[in-house]
C-alpha cells in the first residue's frame, strides 16, 4: 500500500489504512512533539490529537499531495495552540533521557559530549529557529514540505534555516569555549 492509496482508503472510512499511516508517522510525530514541548506526556497527547484531527479531516485532504507535511502542520498548530493557551514555555531539551545504543565507551563519551552540546545549542535557539531545525532535520521535511507545514514561503523557510544553523554554530562554539574555561585543557 502506498501513502496515496492509504489516504484514499481512509477517505472511504478504512481504519486499517489509517493504522498504516499512523504506524508510518507516529515516531516522527511523537518525536517532533517531544522536541517541541520537552514533555513526554504532552507530546503523546499532541500526537494523539494530531492523528485524531487528521482522521476527522481526511475527507478534505487533497490526494496526490504529500501527506506528511499536512500531518506535521496539524501537529505544529496543536502544539503552538497549547503552548499559547497554557503559556507553557518549552522545556530545555537536556532533560531528555540519554539513549543506550553505544558500545564503545570512548566513542560513547565523545557522543555524549556532542549530544549534550547540541541539545544545549538547540535549546538556546528561539522558537522559530528551533521549529524549522526540528522539522527539517528531525522530521525530515523537505524545504517545500516544511513551507507547507508551517504556512510560510519557501524563501522564508530557507533563510530561517540558514539563520538557525548559523546561530547553532555560534552556540556550539560558545559551548566549546566554555568547556576550555571550565577545564583549562585543550
Amino acid at each position, binding site marked *: 500500500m502506498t501513502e496515496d492509496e492509504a489516504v484514499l482508503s481512509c477517505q472511504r472510512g478504512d481504519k486499517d489504512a489509517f493504522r498504516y499511516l499512523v504506524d508510518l508517522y507516529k515516531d516522527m510525530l511523537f518525536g517532533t512533539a517531544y522536541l517541541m514541548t520537552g514533555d513526554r506526556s504532552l507530546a503523546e497527547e499532541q500526537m494523539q490529537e494530531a492523528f485524531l484531527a487528521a482522521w476527522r479531516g481526511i475527507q478534505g485532504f487533497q490526494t496526490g499531495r504529500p501527506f506528511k507535511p499536512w500531518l506535521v502542520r496539524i501537529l505544529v498548530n496543536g502544539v503552538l495552540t497549547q503552548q499559547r493557551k497554557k503559556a507553557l514555555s518549552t522545556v530545555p531539551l537536556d532533560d531528555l533521557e540519554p*539513549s543506550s*545504543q553505544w558500545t564503545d565507551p570512548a566513542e560513547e563519551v565523545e557522543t555524549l559530549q556532542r*549530544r549534550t552540546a547540541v541539545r544545549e545549542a538547540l535549546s538556546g535557539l528561539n522558537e522559530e529557529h528551533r521549529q524549522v531545525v526540528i522539522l527539517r532535520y528531525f522530521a525530515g521535511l523537505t524545504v517545500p514540505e516544511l513551507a507547507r507545514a508551517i504556512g510560510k514561503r519557501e524563501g522564508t523557510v530557507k533563510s530561517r534555516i540558514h539563520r538557525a544553523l548559523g546561530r547553532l554554530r555560534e552556540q556550539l562554539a560558545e559551548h566549546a569555549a566554555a568547556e576550555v574555561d571550565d577545564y583549562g585543557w585543550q
Partner: protein
Amino acid sequence: MAGNDSSDQDMERLLRRHFADETPAFRAPTDTWTRLESRLEREQGKSPGRFTAFHSLLSQTWTGSRRLAVAGTAAALIAVVVLASVFTFSGSLIYEEPVGSVFYSGEESQPQGPEKPLLGFRDGRQPPIVPPVQKGENRITVEKETASTSAPEKSQEPTVPLTPAERMPREVAKEAPSPVATAPEEPTRLKEMAVENRETGTVDATEETTPENAASSEKPPLKETATENRRQARAAATQPPAATTAPMAMSGVPGPRGGAGPEGAAESSTARSSHLKNPSTQGQWQRSDRSGSGGSYAAPPDTTFKDYQRSRFTAASEDNVSTFSLDTDRTSYQLALNWARSGYQVDPASVRAEEWINAFDYQYLPPKDNDAFSIRTDLIEHPLDSGKHLARIAFQAPEVRDDAPLNVTLVLDSSGSMHEGNRVDIARAAAESIRRSLGPSDRIAVVQFSDDIVREAAVDHSHPDNDSVQRSIERLRPRGSTNVQAGIDLGVQMADQARRQRPEAHNYIILMSDGVANVDATNPFAILESAYDRSSGNPLRIITIGVGIQNYNDYLLEQLAQHGNGWYRYLNDVDAARQTFSRENWLAISTPFADQTRAQVTWDPKVVNSWRIIGYENRITPDETFTQDRKEFAEIPSGSATTVFYELELNEGAIWQERGPYNLTLGKVQLRWVKPGTEERRLESSIISGNLHSAFDTSPDQFLRLGAIVALASDRFSALSGPEDGLVPGVGADLFMLQQRLQMLKDPLGDLAAYKDLAFLLERMADGTAELAPDGPRSGYSR
C-alpha cells in the same frame, strides 16, 4: 557565501547524526494505535466534544443510579436533573472570573506576632495577589428536599439498625461507628452504658432530630437525665482505653503507610472507627524518647491529642463510597505553627490533615446563588507517587447575611492552669472583642468556672453594653482547678433559656479554655452528654477557643465543638484574639449557612481502582449515615470553604479505551445539609471530573498545587505518630520533595504570609524527621 554553505552542510550533518542518536528517546508509545482506535470508535458519527462528555456523564449517571436506588425517588430526580443539565451545558465547564478574596480562609488571623504584615483576609481588605485559574466549577444540581413537616425524608430511607452505641450518646456512637461496633471484640463500656442509659427500644438516630420526636419522646429537661448520664458518663470517661484501644489491637494494622491491598476495605473500616493506641497521647512523640541523646527540641509537654489512624487505600471494587462530615476547623495547623515558632517540635499526633488543608484559602469562586454551595473538582498527577493521582473536591459556601439576632453565652475558664503564659489575657481579649462586635439586638451572658461555677462572675443574657458583662470579663482571674463540665452545664442552661425567650436568635456558647479539665467529667462525650441539646431546629452551637501551648487538651476542645454543632479555633496571642473576633469577622463566622453538612463521594469503579481520603479521619462516618441528620456533622459558617483531597489509583487502561483522558468522569459527590433555623434539607450533587494528564509542576493552578502540598505534608507527617513508633521510612524524603514543590510556588505565592509560614513549618518538620531517622530518610536498613 560558499564557506557559509559548506558550514551549513556540516551543521546539517551534525544535526542529522544528533537526531539519529536521540531517536530512541523519540519512539511513540507502543500502545499509540490502541488508544487512538478506541477514541476513533467513540468518535464515529458523533460530533466529538459533545459525545465524549455525554458518554462519560451518562455512564456516570447509570453507575450512580444503581447506588441511588437505595435513596429512592430523590435520587431519580437528581439523575434527571443531571441529564438535563448535561444537555444544557453539553458537559462544558463553567468558567468564571476570579473574585477578590484572600489567603487565609475566614476570619482567622494568621497565627503570628503582630510585627508581621497582616495579609489576605476574606473580608476583602486586600485584593487577591494572584489571579486564580478556575476551571472546574461544575456543580450540577441543587435540589430542595423540603421537609414536608412530618418525618421528612426519613420515611424513604432504609432504617439502618443502629448499634446501641449509635443510639445513645451520639458522641459515643461516633467513637464506635457501626462497622466496628459490629465486631464482637468491641464490647466497650461505653456501649453498655448506652444500653442501660436509654430506654432500649429501637430508636432511629434520625428520629431524634425531628421536632415531633423531640416533643413526644421523654423530652428530657437538661438536668434530670443529665445527672444520671453524667454519673455513668464519668465512669466511662475514666475507662476510655477500653473503648479506644480495642480496634487497634484487633486490626493488626501493619503500619500507617501500608498500601492498597485486598484488605484495604476492611482496614479502612477500622480506620473509620478512628482510634488510636491511646486516647490521651500525653506528648508521647518526643525525640528524646527515641534517641535518648537529649533532644534539641521536642513536642510541648502535657498536651493531649487523640491520634486518629490514617485511612488506607480502599479497592473501589469492594467499596467505592466515601462519606464524611465537612469541616472548617484549622486549629491543628495553627497549633503546629505556634509550636514551631515557640521552638517546639510539631507533634505528629496533633496533625489533622483536614485542618491543615482548610487553614488556607484557595480562592474558590463563590456560588452563583446564595442558596447552595458551589462544588468544584480537579484532578492532578500525584507529586510524590508517579502513577497515582490526586483529586480535589471543594465546597464553597456563599457569603450570606441574615437579620437573626444572636444569643451569645461566654463560658470562660478561670482555673489555675489559665495562669500560665498569657492565656487569661488572650481569653479576656477575645471575650471583649466578641462583646464589642455584637449589635444592639444581640444578647450576651458570661459564665466563669474553676472548681465550680464562679457565682459572683455569672451574668445572665444582657445587652452587650451592659456594665456587668464588661466587668465580669475584666475580672477574669485564674484560680483553683478546672471543672469544664460545670461551666458547660450552666452555659447550656442559660443559652437554652435565652433560646426560649428569643426563638428567632442564633445561639452560640463560646468556651475559652486550655481544655485541661480535671474536676468532674473530663471526657468530651461525658461533658456533652450532660449538656445534650435535643433541639435540631435551632441548635445551641458550641464554639471552643483554645489558648496555651504546654498543658493543653486539644482533644477535649475539638470534640466538644465537633459534637456540639460548632467549630474550634486556636488563639496564640492577644492580637489574634482581636483579629478573629473583630466585628467584620464576627459577622461572617456568626452567621451559619448550613448545619449538619456532610458529603458522600461515589467513585466509578471502572475508572478508579482504589482510593484513599487524606485526613478527615475523625469526620468519616458510615455510608448509611449520609441520609441521617446528626449533630456531629459540621456547621458551616457563611462564606467558608472545605477542601478534601483523595489519592487515587486510576485504571488508565480502561480510561484510554473507554473514556479518553479529557474531562474524565471519576465519580460523583453529593452534599446534604440542613438550612439553619429550618427543617429544610438540601441535597446537592456534582460530577467529579478532571483531565488525566495534568502534570503537577506545570499546573497553572498554584492553589491546587499548594493545597496538595499541604495535604500530603500533613498526612505523611502524621504517620510518624503511628504504630511504627515514629520510624516511618520515606516520610523525610516525602517532606523534602514537598519542600521542593513548595519552593516552585515561591514566585506566584511567596509574598503571602501563609506561604512563608508553611515553608517555615515544613522546614521544621523536615528537620525533626531527619532527627528521627538519623540514617537518612531511606536508610536501607531493615526494621
